[in-house]
């Protein structure tokens, strides 16, 4: 097994004005499950393909283990890749699909048979070994693609959106299975997805990319609780974090955040940071997650300086929780996530309070989290 290191990696296509991937620096540890996540066109798949050797590196150095692999052919990198499109060999049976790579490497027949059957057992496709890919469902095809990668026993697994062709239920199931499988095989895994749920549930570490640049690389908890900028804050979490534009002001020694129909006190620690960094009197963006807006009387009683009132436009009861779509606060709709047993109804104007210990403030210009660094 091996780690992977990317040093100042750039990718620029001929004729393109801008780099598709820009100055990527990453140190992926041995046996780590790293997820590259971001919207379409952010450069995550290109980065993965450069690691695989399927895309030329325009600038920078790529290491697998201690070896620079910029000029090493994919077959000699000891990696196995699983694609979104599965890319199975259509004229071969499932068994042949899984065995083919080993056959090319002149592995003994008995050894191939053992490995294929072991992988098939792990993936629960033993009964499909004689079938051709066209006789398989999407989920089964994806398992075969995984099986083909597993039997090669690579140093690194590379997976490019392997679940995005599957329906939601199967995706959830396969998500757990892949995580379990990679842990069991104790192999480094680099996984590309657009889906933040996949990223949050599967990765030891997540790299959020946007516009060819790494926005933040951190553990799922850190990304959620300490987003470095507006993009990460808005990308991770569902429903997304609420952003309210307002001004920070000093009122009798206390720092307050003021926006349309909102006037709340910033707690001491955070107040000191924004004061020290010179944001008093300036317009900033406050980020507050839906679950940090409360309606419970106990919370309201304990937080008299963060109470506001807002019109409930829409309610969505999901059973275990209810989403309140609030209008009139700041510059757009604000979503609050409250208990599923809430009695709040559409058209009402309840009192709510924000847990100000959990909010973030972002610089309006640079979009960076003011409270970090």
């Amino acid at each position, binding site marked *: 097994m091996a780690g992977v290191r990317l040093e100042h990696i750039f990718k620029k*296509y*001929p*004729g*393109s*004005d*801008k780099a*598709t991937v820009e100055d990527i620096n990453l140190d992926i540890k041995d046996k780590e499950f790293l997820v590259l996540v971001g*919207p*379409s*066109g952010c450069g995550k798949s*290109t980065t993965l393909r450069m690691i*695989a*050797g*399927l*895309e*030329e590196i325009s600038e920078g150095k790529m290491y697998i283990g201690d070896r620079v692999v910029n*000029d*090493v*052919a*994919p*077959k000699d990198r000891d990696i*196995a*890749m699983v*694609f979104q*499109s*599965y*890319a*199975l*060999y*259509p*004229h071969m049976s499932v068994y042949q699909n899984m065995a*083919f*790579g080993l*056959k*090319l490497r002149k592995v003994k027949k008995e050894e191939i048979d053992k490995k294929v059957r072991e992988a098939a057992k792990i993936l629960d496709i033993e009964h499909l070994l004689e079938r*051709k*890919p*066209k*006789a398989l469902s999407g989920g089964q095809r994806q398992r075969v693609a995984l099986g083909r990668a597993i039997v090669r026993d690579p140093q690194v697994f590379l997976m490019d959106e392997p679940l995005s062709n599957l329906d939601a239920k199967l995706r959830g199931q396969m998500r757990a299975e892949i995580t379990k499988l990679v842990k069991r095989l104790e192999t480094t895994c680099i996984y590309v997805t*657009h*889906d933040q749920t996949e990223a949050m549930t599967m990765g030891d570490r997540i790299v959020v990319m946007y*516009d060819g640049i790494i926005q933040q690389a951190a553990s799922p908890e850190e990304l959620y609780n300490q987003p470095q900028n507006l993009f990460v804050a808005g990308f991770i979490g569902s429903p997304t974090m609420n952003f309210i534009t307002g001004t920070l002001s000093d009122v009798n020694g206390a720092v307050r955040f003021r926006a349309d129909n909102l006037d709340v006190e910033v707690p001491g620690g955070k107040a000191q940071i924004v004061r020290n960094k010179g944001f008093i009197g300036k317009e900033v963006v406050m980020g507050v997650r839906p679950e940090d807006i409360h309606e419970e009387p106990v919370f309201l009683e304990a937080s008299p300086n963060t109470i506001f009132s807002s019109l409930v436009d829409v309610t969505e009861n999901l059973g275990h929780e209810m989403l309140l779509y609030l209008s009139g606060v700041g510059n757009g709709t604000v979503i609050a996530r409250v208990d599923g047993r809430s009695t709040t109804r559409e058209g009402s104007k309840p009192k709510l309070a924000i847990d100000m210990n959990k909010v973030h403030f972002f610089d309006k210009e640079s979009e960076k989290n003011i409270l970090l660094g």
Partner: protein
Amino acid sequence: MDSETLRQKLEQLTGKKTGLKQLGRQQSASLFGVGTEGKEQQPVISEGSLWVPLYDNDGRITTVWVELEGLSSREVQLVNYAAQNFAVALKATGFREEGEVEARQLSSWLNVQLEQEKDDAEIPDDMALKSRLFSDMIPFLLSSENVHSPQVSYRSLMKLLRSYFENEVLLIPLQEKEWLILARKELLTGGDDKEDEEENDDDLLAQTSMGLHELIASEWVGIFHLAVAPAVVPVKGLTGSVALLRETIILGRIFQVGEYIHLPWELRLERLVNSIPDTRRRKLLGQIGDYSSVLSDKEMLLTLETFFEMDCNVSETAKKLYIHRNTLLYRLDKIKQETGADVRSFGDAAIVKLTMLLYKVTKRK
């Protein structure tokens, strides 16, 4: 001269039975000696025949043999001498693997036809491979970027393809970095194995290309473009298919940047735009209006490309881009605001699509 001609000459000379045979590693070693790699292997007499080594393929020696029964010792000496001379002449042609010479012969002819734009030329009788070109075959064109392996040998690629296509394949090296692969259609369609009639030829070819691309990318050389054309009977239609494949790769490089599998039926409009002379294209682009703010914005360009790819279906586009439907509608409104074109209407969509293609072909030169 090829090995078959050599065999025929020996047969004429001796009037005895002759043959060509590739020996296994073990048999090669026992007949011609172990560890003879790099040294000139000598003919040997074994089991009443003279065995003349022609070339060594990873320890497997291909030989021509001549039955010696009834020949005097002087005649055997002469046959031995003649066979050795023929073998030397054969090696001097740079011949390394059975099939390569024939493939290169076809390649030279194909290149001449393509240069002269004779897309419907029929393969002449003197082509050694002609007898193998009468059945339906699927042509693939592989254009390598050769980043990791500057020297790609016919032998290594052929070996890989033979394993993949179960020996039912022809490999024609067209240019230094360009290879034509002909695979038998029945192998890929599964012959009588028609359990899924719904799958059409285009889908099958696309899937086959993905599989082949994955195979060659991961097992041989990483970065290359691959195009596939519909099945053809090569003896009549090969030149036309190769011309189509070459054009497809050229179009793919221009219009599908970042993609490596190119399918001709997905590049029809691109073919039309590319056929317009450059000055005319630039003039047209100027006349259509100013779309530069939208087309130079990566996010907007991706949005439009996906929207057209999804047949202007808002929900499907949003799903494919992994964005909310409203976000997509906002972007489409923004495009309308900036350019005056509402891509939800067919007329405007057609103009924007053409503008995008013109923009790509003129800006990405």
